């Protein structure tokens, strides 16, 4: 049936885990394009024949049929590409300007180019904000709390907070500190975030 191959592309995106990018299906796209051009050629032929015939409206119905299929293929292809770009865009915000190689391998050449351009535009926009630029990729969701509970997993020693006071981070002590200050230490595995 016409349109099945195109739908397969869409299903591929649907099946991929949320936020992950499946490999660019070049082969699938080629097949859909072939099917589309076959449909187009047949339509061209039928329209030509139609103009030479008289009183036969019935050929046009078949043209209409194929045209619908053609449009369907077009929609699926565009949706496929568009949704992939959306995912890629989201990745720029999540991973920054350098993507992990396994994601990069799943992108087509054009998608790579697009990513680089998008990345550049975003970077220059962020630089233009305020006096020294503003990193929009930080704090994308409003934090529920300014402060979080953390537990010290190993001895770290003195830690100067933004307001200039000292906190001694010793193993097995628990603290209530500004989230923004803790985040790097949590990533380093010195602190552990405790839920209440």
């Amino acid at each position: 049936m016409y349109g099945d191959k195109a739908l397969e592309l869409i299903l591929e995106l649907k099946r991929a885990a949320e936020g992950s990018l499946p490999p660019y299906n070049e082969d699938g796209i080629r097949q859909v394009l072939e099917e589309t051009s076959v449909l187009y050629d047949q339509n061209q032929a039928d329209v030509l024949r139609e103009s030479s015939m008289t009183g036969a409206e019935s050929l046009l119905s078949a043209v209409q049929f194929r045209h619908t299929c053609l449009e369907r293929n077009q929609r699926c292809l565009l949706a496929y590409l568009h949704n992939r770009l959306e995912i890629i865009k989201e990745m720029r915000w999540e991973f920054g300007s350098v993507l992990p190689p396994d994601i990069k391998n799943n992108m087509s050449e054009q998608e790579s180019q697009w990513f680089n351009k998008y990345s550049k535009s975003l970077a220059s926009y962020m630089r233009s904000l305020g006096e020294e630029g503003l990193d929009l990729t930080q704090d994308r969701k409003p934090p529920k709390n300014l402060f979080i509970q953390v537990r010290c997993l190993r001895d770290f020693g003195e830690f100067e907070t933004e307001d200039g006071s000292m906190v001694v981070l010793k193993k097995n002590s628990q603290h209530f500190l500004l989230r923004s200050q803790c985040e790097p230490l949590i990533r380093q595995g010195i602190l552990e975030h405790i839920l209440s």
Partner: protein
Amino acid sequence: MPKYPYTRYHDETQNYYNIDDIIASQEKVPCTCEVTLHRLGFLNPSNEGDDIIPGTKLDLPLWLAGGLGLHGRRRNIVSVDLPKVYKSNMREILSADANVVDMRKTSPHFYAFGTKLLNFQHEESADVSKMLLEVHTKDFKMEPTAIVLGADCSA
């Protein structure tokens, strides 16, 4: 999702790139052919000739039925019938107690698909739309754990 699609498109303008919408529109609807479709006989496996002759029953995907059945200029190429889940006997079951029907099995895109069907201006369209609203209201009121209809959130 972008609001301004690239191509002309009748309804669903909001959903042109929407994956779920594309998948929902793949559901089959029963259609009857109104005119001869030349050299498309291969679509119907039980058909022997080259053409599809008027009166042939075909199960077409919704997007195709939409393209042929809503063909505004002249008369429709196919006429679209209601799928089983939206027919009157099913409507009665659903209006009695919607919670006992496992919609995931019978029709995974019950609402989205149903809403699209309304475009065909079928004679029962009014009833279908009323039922969709009713079932959805009941569905919505239920505890989230017990929902069987909840599979389809695209409505």
